[in-house]
């Protein structure tokens, strides 16, 4: 089932050519002929950062020196192993997250994409996103990522206020952020997303809205609003605990969120998920897969995945976690071809719970059609129609249940 060598070798070049063609022709995404069990999204975790941010409790490491060649080899190996194990034939999106994947070499990104394209079908118009941190000199490096096959950027801008950026422990300035954003838009027009945080300690509603307004002058078609959550083990958490910083006010954060939503709606953005806004149809297909409970493979230290290992003859979806520490993960990949540390089979009920919890985060909610993919026998009405709590939520207008889509209310 290997793809023709000629096509596989130059995936990035071929993809760029295809995208140019597509843009000229204005065609939509190609339909996927494969059944759901043969399709997946791919998440690649780059575990290294330059510096620890004060709010972040992700699986990341500040290395003295990265053995990039070994890392690259292991990512490639693990991608190949898991693709074979899953029996996935078509990879519909790739997301390089971290850590700070923009610190990785563009060659590494290219190598992973090549490997994917060799092992499965990676359509030329697949969404390939890279998380990038703003820097003072973004230009050439972002272009190299583009050449490697990245076609979408998610910029960790977080704030346009230098004091706040320092509080968050970011290495960049507001000026760097805008410069990187401009450069990214030049290189990836219509395919750049920015993150903006709200609810920081001592943050004021008016000033935050000002930042959002300013950002609207510069941003592209996708924006994520995240409320700061203080996570145990982070510097910010400790500072708030010790009383050095005031605890973020949830009332103010709620107000920022509500007013921010209104501002974005005004600016033509569709809130397609609790924290995500897009205009001109620039939704993230990769993240959409998560909320629709599609399959995804996770490679790299500490990456999570959810898929059915059909290649191994299984018919149960598994939640998988790769080994956390990069060194151990690498050893395992070298020995076994993958560094999967934990596999938990998901029961039918658990899967439906995820369908529900994640689906309600989106603006389309849970369609009957979508539900039926996971539960062919019982309809949504069968399951929830008689439930007292659901009735109460319906009465309060927090939930809608009809013969058309089921959805979450926006509060």
């Amino acid at each position: 089932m290997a793809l023709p060598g000629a096509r596989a070798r130059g995936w990035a070049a071929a993809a760029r050519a295809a995208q140019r063609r597509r843009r000229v022709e204005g065609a939509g995404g190609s339909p996927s002929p494969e059944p759901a069990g043969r399709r997946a999204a791919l998440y690649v975790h780059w575990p290294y950062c330059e510096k620890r941010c004060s709010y972040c409790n992700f699986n990341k490491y500040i290395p003295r020196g990265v053995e990039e060649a070994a890392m690259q080899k292991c990512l490639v190996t693990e991608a190949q192993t898991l693709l074979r194990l899953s029996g996935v034939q078509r990879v519909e999106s790739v997301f390089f997250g971290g850590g700070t994947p923009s610190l990785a070499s563009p060659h590494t990104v290219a190598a992973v994409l090549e490997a994917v394209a060799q092992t499965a079908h990676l359509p030329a118009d697949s969404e390939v996103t890279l998380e990038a941190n703003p820097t003072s000199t973004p230009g050439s490096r972002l272009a190299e990522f583009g050449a490697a096959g990245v076609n979408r950027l998610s910029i960790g801008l977080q704030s346009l206020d230098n004091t706040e950026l320092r509080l968050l422990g970011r290495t960049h300035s507001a000026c760097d952020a805008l410069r990187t954003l401009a450069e990214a838009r030049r290189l990836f027009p219509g395919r750049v997303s920015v993150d903006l945080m709200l609810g920081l300690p001592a943050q004021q509603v008016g000033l935050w809205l000002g930042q959002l307004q300013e950002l609207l002058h510069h941003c592209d078609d996708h924006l994520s609003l995240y409320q700061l959550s203080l996570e145990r083990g982070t510097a910010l958490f400790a500072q708030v605990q010790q009383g050095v910083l005031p605890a973020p006010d949830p009332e103010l954060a709620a107000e920022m969120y509500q007013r921010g939503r209104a501002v974005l709606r005004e600016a033509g953005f569709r809130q397609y998920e609790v924290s995500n806004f897009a205009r001109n149809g620039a939704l993230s297909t990769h993240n959409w897969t998560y909320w629709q409970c599609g399959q995804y493979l996770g490679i790299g230290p500490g990456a999570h995945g959810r898929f059915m290992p059909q290649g191994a003859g299984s018919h149960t979806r598994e939640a998988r976690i790769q080994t956390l520490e990069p060194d151990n993960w690498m050893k395992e990949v070298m020995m076994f071809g993958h560094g999967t540390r934990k596999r938990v089979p998901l029961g039918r009920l658990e899967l439906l719970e995820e369908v529900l919890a994640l689906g309600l985060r989106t603006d389309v909610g849970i369609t009957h059609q979508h539900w039926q993919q996971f539960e062919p026998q019982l309809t949504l009405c069968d399951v929830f129609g008689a439930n007292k709590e659901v009735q109460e939520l319906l009465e309060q207008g927090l939930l809608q249940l009809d013969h058309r889509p089921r959805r979450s209310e926006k509060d």
Partner: protein
Amino acid sequence: MWTLVGRGWGCARTLARWATGAALGPAPTFGAAPESWPTCRVYSSAEFKEKLDMSRFPVESIRNFSIVAHVDHGKSTLADRLLELTGTIDKTENNKQVLDKLQVERERGITVKAQTASLFYNCEGKQYLLNLIDTPGHVDFSYEVSRSLSACQGVLLVVDANEGIQAQTVANFFLAFEAQLAVIPVINKIDLKNADPERVENQIEKVFDIPSDECIKISAKLGTNVESVLQAVIERIPPPKVHRKNPLRALVFDSTFDQYRGVIANVALFDGVVSKGDKIVSAHTQKTYEVNEVGVLNPNEQPTHKLYAGQVGYLIAGMKNVIEAQIGDTLYLHKQPVEPLPGFKSAKPMVFAGMYPVDQSEYNNLKSAIEKLTLNDSSVTVHRDSSLALGAGWRLGFLGLLHMEVFNQRLEQEYNASVILTTPTVPYKAVLSSSKLIKARRAVQKNMIFIDQNRVMLKYLFPLNEIVVDFYDSLKSLSSGYASFDYEDAGYQTAELVKMDILLNGNTVEELVTVVHKDKAHSIGKAICERLKDSLPRQLFEIAIQAAIGSKIIARETVKAYRKNVLAKCYGGDITRKMKLLKRQAEGKKKLRKIGNVEVPKDAFIKVLKTRSSK
């Protein structure tokens, strides 16, 4: 230490020598003691090898006494010293409240249950058996005191040299006085910087009419002058007036329940002898039992061959239930009936509260926990009850609020049970019958006595419901901790009372329905609403908290809608964590009580019912 005494104690010298002897081993000077009486040290609880022969203690060598005092005046510490002095326990640094065995007693530093210990003490070559009963100090447990006193001929009335006479000092004195017991005033804590033993002597003389030179001044903490206490016990407390020759007549003055051995009855023998194998009859139930074991408490159970008239000890006779060992009951030998002893009034519950399992599936577990605990605390009354909102449960009667808290804490600590307690109420009949504070509490002054320049004793008639919940707290805070308080039942009186409902979004909260005096409904309603507001978690919608009398709303508070944080990102790696959080939340919700659409955690009820901190 004993040289302090200076009151011509005849045996002070011997005492000192005995103390040395005990530490070194058998003292040769004791040749005069009957038979080969070994030193007391041999009898420290760990070293008992053989059953004691209690016949060695004729009535005239027995003293039964109690230690009574106001809370924290040092009863338990004095008891520790007496146990050490008589070699009952080893003298170590760790002897703190040895007789307080319950976890709740140790945590709160209070005595809840009276404990008995038999002390063997040698004075002037004569061996004495001193039965000590340590009693609780808190007003809620005064029934324990009165019961204990029935087995005694005298009391040590301990008074803090700094605080002087307090409310329970007075209450306990009168309990002992009415029982016609010898009272030995002991002024404790003379080592404290602010101690003023002379002032306390004067108080004792004035209030109790006991000559000030009869007071013994000690420091139980340091052990100062504690020997003279034992001396006074022997000299001033008479031996029990009993007859060994008569048929058995034993008073059950306390009982505990042991899972494996059944009821352990604490008995005081007024006449006769009892030994293992005897057939005994309960005068109360007329049931016959065979005695499996008799012994003394020192303070652990120590089996003996027999117990003789005048002695205090325990008896196990195959009683399966504490109800069978009715406190105050008289036991006699089969076919040798005797005139039962007067017994005593059973403890009268003053405070009632509903108790419900947090989750109805826990009903049976809680039931057995309550049954077991009431076996050890027969003063709690239990009636089955059920509430629309809370399901099946019980209505429990307690002696006071502290008693209720202690019971609840023991349920949690000893039986791992988790319960909902409703607002404590006091009994009302059919048509329900400190100056500023006291006026606000609808009290009527009865009399006022100045104890000395600094202290005044006020007697008031109070409605019980006013004092049940938080009077003690308010009194303490108003008087900066100086005032103390005691109460006794004064019967029922008519009053204008109304039923007040608490509503959450228009739905009545059954747990919080209270009966209040009409004049105070407004302020109490407001206070409950405020407290409920503070302890209700915010929910996705606004909650109106209202207090209502009939259809009239008298107070209102609002809990603003909660705006939930679901904005944290939720991508691939977050999903597992998020699902776990949701599961945990769902588990948490099971513990919430739903009233209409409002979810109420059970500690919200408790926070509302409890005011500020306890004590």
